[in-house]
Structures are given as structure tokens and as C-alpha cells.
């Protein structure tokens, strides 16, 4: 269990992490999602005590990281696969870490076998490919049989085989009851692995909810209708109980229904249709909208904040509404 309370990190005038509150629970994969520079790595470094929070705190099973008796036995982290001395062999790198925590030498052999590096264990890690470096990092993370594992962008730059391996590894670790906390800037990656989602944008926690909930809330669809007679068509559709939003470009966004039903209404009323499109927004777009909102919020451009009839935002659940971006911009992204 990782618990952050009002966790804040300030670099000069820039808030890298801004009063972050979140909990990472055991037995599932928790995705830590945010665009580059959102504060993911800084947060993870603070969890490990590498960076000192400006204010607030973060604890591991209730204890600050630097007070853990044998940290590697409780938290295994892969923040940067290149954080090794390239002149040291993979075996010796792991041995250095094992000695620091009083772990038996046999454990080094065990994790080397686990990640499949036994044939190159004696070679300088500086000559390793990216994928092998990543596996060495994972071996180091698993060295102490930790209850919590933390990976920062683990699939970055890996080939498909490596990506698949890491996904399966994370799921297996969570299935064993461990706490798995993994960061990514790719929603698509998180959708495949994470059970729970913590979204961060410009240092602020924008969402902290189960993946299923996030999907339900965010994967909305609507029908885009273009008609030469929007003013006549809109009330007819609204009469059926569907939510209709008129766009600045005179098109209509109709929610809670299917294109065929709209076509039937238009036909029955004798109205012309020029376009009838089902628009499905992906999770990636939902994520971009969420974080784009935080960008605009912080850039101080949301003078018309609230914009209650921001069409694309209205149905997106409460956390989003407060950061409603301007409608036309969002519309661009959805198409």
C-alpha cells in the first residue's frame, strides 16, 4: 500500500506535483497516467525518498521509505533502466543491491533466471540492449521479493515481445497479491494492464478511480447530424428524450441514441439530412481531454470557466466539468 497525502514538489516557481492525494492498493495493477512532464517520475522519486517533498508526505505501508528496515524487501522499483553502472556486470550489479539489504547471493541467481539473463549475467551491463537493460532493472526490482513493485514507463522503447512480457509480468505480480504501480503516458497501454487508474496532469491528480468506472464515464458516443434545417430538427429529436446539443457550425450532437433512429425521425418529419455519423471517443481522447483541461486551467485561459453548455464535456462526469475546455477545441480533437 502506497499512500500519498498532500504530496507536493516545487522546483523554483514550478509545481511539479501539486497536493497529490492518492492510494495504491494491493492485489491490482494501478496505472499512473499522465502526459510527459505531468509529475509521474517526480512522484515516484518522492515515493522512494530520492526527492524530498516540498510539503506533504508519502508512505509505504504507513512508513516513510527511508525508515523501511530493508527497503528492497518491501518495494521493488524500476524507475530508469539506465540507472546502473555500465562497467559492472549484471550479476555484480544485483549483488551490490543484495548486499545492501542482506539478501542471500542465491537470490541474485534466482532473479537472473527469472528474467532470462543467465547467459549474459557476467557481461558488462553497458553492452545490453534496451530490452535487456529493462529486464535487469526488473530483476533488481524483484530481488527482495517485495510486496510493492513500481515501474516508470516500463514498456518505453521495447519491442512487442518485451512489451507483452512486461504486461504479463505486472498482471502476474498483481495476481499474487502484490501492489503494482506503473506509470505510462499511453492510455492504450493502461487500458490493457491497469485495474485502477490515477491520472495526473501538471502535477494535479485529475482522476483516481477503477478502470471500469473510468471507461464507463469516459467512453461516450454521440451521433453527429448535419441538416440544412437544424432549428426544426433539434426540437423533434429532443422530444424523443434524447439530449441534443447545437454546435457553432450548425451541426447537432445527439446523445443516447443510434443513427438509424435519428434517420427515422428525420424521414417521418420530412427533413433533410446531410450527415449522420456515430462518433465514438476513445479512452485516449478521454485522457487527452482530461489533461488538456488541466493545461488550460493552469494557463489561466479558462475565463469562461464552467461553460455549462460545452457540448463535448457535459456528459463526462463531475471531475471533468470543472476543467471544461472550450468547446470548439475539444471538438477538433474528437474528430
Amino acid at each position, binding site marked *: 500500500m502506497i499512500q500519498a497525502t498532500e504530496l507536493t514538489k516545487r522546483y523554483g516557481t514550478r509545481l511539479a506535483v501539486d497536493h497529490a492525494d492518492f492510494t495504491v492498493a494491493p492485489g491490482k495493477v494501478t496505472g499512473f497516467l499522465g502526459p510527459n512532464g505531468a509529475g509521474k517520475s517526480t512522484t515516484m522519486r518522492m515515493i*522512494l*525518498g530520492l526527492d524530498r517533498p516540498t510539503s506533504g508526505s508519502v508512505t509505504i505501508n504507513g512508513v516513510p521509505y*527511508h525508515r523501511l528496515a530493508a527497503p528492497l524487501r518491501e518495494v521493488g*522499483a524500476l524507475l530508469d533502466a539506465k540507472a546502473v553502472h555500465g562497467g559492472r556486470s549484471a550479476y555484480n550489479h544485483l549483488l*551490490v*543491491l543484495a548486499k545492501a539489504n542482506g539478501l542471500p547471493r542465491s537470490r541474485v541467481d534466482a532473479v537472473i533466471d527469472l528474467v532470462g*539473463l543467465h547467459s549474459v549475467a557476467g557481461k558488462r551491463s553497458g553492452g545490453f540492449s534496451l530490452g535487456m537493460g529493462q529486464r535487469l532493472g526488473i530483476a533488481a526490482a524483484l530481488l527482495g521479493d517485495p510486496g510493492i513493485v513500481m515501474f516508470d514507463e516500463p514498456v518505453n522503447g521495447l519491442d512487442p515481445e518485451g512489451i507483452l512480457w512486461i504486461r504479463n509480468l505486472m498482471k502476474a505480480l498483481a495476481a499474487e497479491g502484490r501492489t503494482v504501480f506503473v506509470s505510462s503516458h499511453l492510455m492504450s497501454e493502461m487500458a490493457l494492464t491497469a485495474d485502477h487508474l490515477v491520472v495526473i496532469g501538471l502535477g494535479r491528480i485529475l482522476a483516481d478511480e477503477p478502470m471500469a468506472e473510468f471507461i464507463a464515464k469516459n467512453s461516450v458516443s454521440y451521433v453527429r447530424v448535419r441538416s440544412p434545417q437544424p432549428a426544426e430538427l433539434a426540437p423533434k429529436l429532443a422530444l424523443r428524450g434524447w439530449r441534443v446539443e447545437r454546435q457553432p457550425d450548425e451541426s447537432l450532437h445527439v446523445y443516447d441514441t443510434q443513427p438509424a433512429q435519428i434517420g427515422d425521425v428525420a424521414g417521418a418529419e420530412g427533413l433533410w439530412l446531410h450527415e449522420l455519423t456515430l462518433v465514438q471517443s476513445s479512452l485516449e481522447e478521454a485522457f487527452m481531454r482530461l489533461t488538456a483541461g488541466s493545461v488550460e486551467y493552469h494557463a489561466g485561459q479558462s475565463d469562461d470557466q464552467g461553460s455549462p453548455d460545452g457540448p463535448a464535456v457535459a456528459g463526462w462526469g463531475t471531475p471533468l466539468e470543472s476543467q471544461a475546455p472550450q468547446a470548439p477545441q475539444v471538438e477538433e480533437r474528437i474528430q
Partner: protein
Amino acid sequence: MSTVTDKVPVFAGLAPLPEAKGRAGFGGALRSEWTKIRSVKSTLWTLAAAIVIGVGISALGNWGQSSHTTETAVELAHKDLVQRTMFGIILGQLVMVVFGALAVTAEYSTGMIRTSLSAQPRRLNVFFAKLVIVTLVAFVVGEIISFASFFIGAHFWATKGVTLTLSTHGALQAVIGGGLYLVGAALLAFGIGAALRHTAGAITLGVALLFVINIITNFMPTSWQNDIDKWLPYNAGSQVWATQHVADVGTSFSAWSGFGVYMGYAVIALILGLWVFERRDA
């Protein structure tokens, strides 16, 4: 440099570890730091280079001086030949600076520091464990350089009829002192390295303090030199490997007070380094 590939295994679960015993403490940090030092070739090469350069320059210098001197054995006996046998320390100290600086700056340049501090987040343990290991290794290497230089030099001077042994007046202390002086050079660089976290910067500053500064003061007015000279790190520290303590200009410190001043500089650097190491984000 070779890039190697290997079959990706299927994750088959982990065998659980037996219950943890004890905590990650200073003992573990010491064993970890010792493993670090001995498992990187560049460190071993640096130490080998220190010995080759230190002893080699001593041997070369004493061979040249002893074979070209026109002085008689009686005249030579009044010179500080013991210190002269360890002439190579002047260059050996520069390699020790590299060793001391790299011991800490390599952690930052490679990024290893983040891994090290994740395994041992109590930074004082890491700093002092590293310090102890660097001190011990520098001591062994330093004494090898000073003793080997002395015996080789004594061999050359014996051909001129001057007998140098460890029981010669002050010789044993000076030869041990030669090794201690080299430990000081490594520790000064270690402190600077921890403060700057930058290999080139730390080595440059270390070399400047031990070597370049002496050249610069040579260009100063004599009256300034008299005041400054004995306080320079090299001039103060080198008293401990001398058997005569009259400096070229002004007065000099005695062996141990000079060494104390010299180690004072190292301690200042170490305190600065410790402060940065403990306080600043890794």
C-alpha cells in the same frame, strides 16, 4: 561492447524469500560499497595506474638523479633523500584524485545513485560506508606506492654510497606518511566529488588545489609567498613524508601539524560533500 539477445521467458512466479533478518544497515552498506569498488574495471585500472605512475616516476627520478649527481655521499646525506625517493607521489596524487572523485561522481554520471539510494535510503550509511571503503583502498594503494618508491630509491642511492633504511632518522614515519598523504588526496577529491556531483569538475578542482595552485603562487611576490606557501595543501601535506622541515621559502609546518592542515582541507571538502549528499535530491 557487445549487444546480446536472449529468449524471453514466461513469468513463472517467484519463490518466496525466507523471513527478513535485521535491517539494511551500515554493515550491509559496507559490503555493498566494497562490491561496487571491486566489480568495476575502471576503478581497478585507476588504482593500477596510481601504482604504476607513482612508483614508476619515483624510480625514474631517483635513477636519473642518482646517476647524474656530482655530490659526494657526505653532501647527499644532508639532503632529504627519503622524501626524494617518493618523488612520484607528486604525480601519483593526481591519479588518487581521480580515484577519490570517481568513487562518488560515477554514481551520478551513470545514474547508479538512484538505484543505490533506493536500496539504502539512509544516506549517511551510504556516504560513510563509501568513505570507509575509499579510505581503506587508498591507504593500501598509497602505502604500496610509498614503500615501493622508498625501497627502489634506496637501491639507487646505495650505488652512491648513501644507505637509506627505514631506521634512518625519520624515514619510517615519512614513508608511512607518503601513503597517508595519498589517502588525503583521495578524500579531498571524494568530498569535492560529493559536493559537485560532476566527474570532470571534481577532478579539475582536486588537481588545481593539489598541483596547479603551487605553480600559480610561484608567480606571486616573494613577500606573499612567505605568508601563503606553507598553507597550500601540497606544501602542508608533504611535510608528513619529509624528514626535513625547512621549506624553500618561509617556514614550514612540522610533519604532523602540516598533515593536520592538509587533512583539514579534506575534511572541509567532505563536510560540504556530506551536506550536499544528504540534503539534495538524488
